[in-house]
């Protein structure tokens, strides 16, 4: 297994766990209480930043063409990384579609959505972006042997 592939698996495991935790917190406490409950807000924000930091350590070094990581990957890994951006695009489109449908269905009668949602959409897109890159990397390795 290539080093990038191992890191993608690890990243998905960490990202998936944190995403599930964030989702669980938001479901249990209610997303609209995000701004009222300081503890919840800092916990969710901390978890998401932790996930992004883990991703920055695991995957981002492979995007650099210089540095010590260069010895761990070659042109096939670069091709896999490039193709993974396609999965990121579909992941983001899917997440935005899900948010749009859910918020429209739930808040159709009110005509407005609580102000917290644009903030949560932003964080969720960052999470989906990192997770879908990992999935794209694994798909790429599967297709390219």
């Amino acid at each position, binding site marked *: 297994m290539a080093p990038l592939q191992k890191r993608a698996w690890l990243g998905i495991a960490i990202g998936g766990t944190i995403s599930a935790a964030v989702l669980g917190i938001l479901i249990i406490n209610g997303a609209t209480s995000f701004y009222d409950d300081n503890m919840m807000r800092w916990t969710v924000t901390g978890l998401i930043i932790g996930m992004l930091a883990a991703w920055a350590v695991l995957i981002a070094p492979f995007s650099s063409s210089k540095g010590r990581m260069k010895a761990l990957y070659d*042109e096939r*890994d670069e091709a896999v990384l490039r193709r993974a951006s396609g999965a990121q695009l579909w992941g983001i489109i899917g997440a935005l579609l899900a948010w749009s449908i859910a918020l429209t269905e739930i808040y159709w009668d009110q005509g407005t959505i609580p102000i917290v949602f644009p903030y949560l959409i932003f964080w969720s897109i960052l999470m989906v972006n990192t997770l879908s890159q990992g999935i794209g990397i694994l798909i790429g390795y599967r297709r*390219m042997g």
Partner: protein
Amino acid sequence: MPKAEISNRIRRLRFDHDEMTQQELADRVGCTRQTIIAVEAGKYVPSLSLAFQIAKAFGVSVEEVFQYEE
């Protein structure tokens, strides 16, 4: 455009060069063993640069390593 297949004789050439291992070939051409495995299995088509390096490692022309089949 018709779908083209690029086959290769890397396994045969490794055998002919004193059973050169995939790791040895990878070290010579500057890529990972996983990439050699993928190229050998026909799952990854290498760049021109890597293809020339592989051919050079065996001391043959690119056409003797890779074959283009329509």
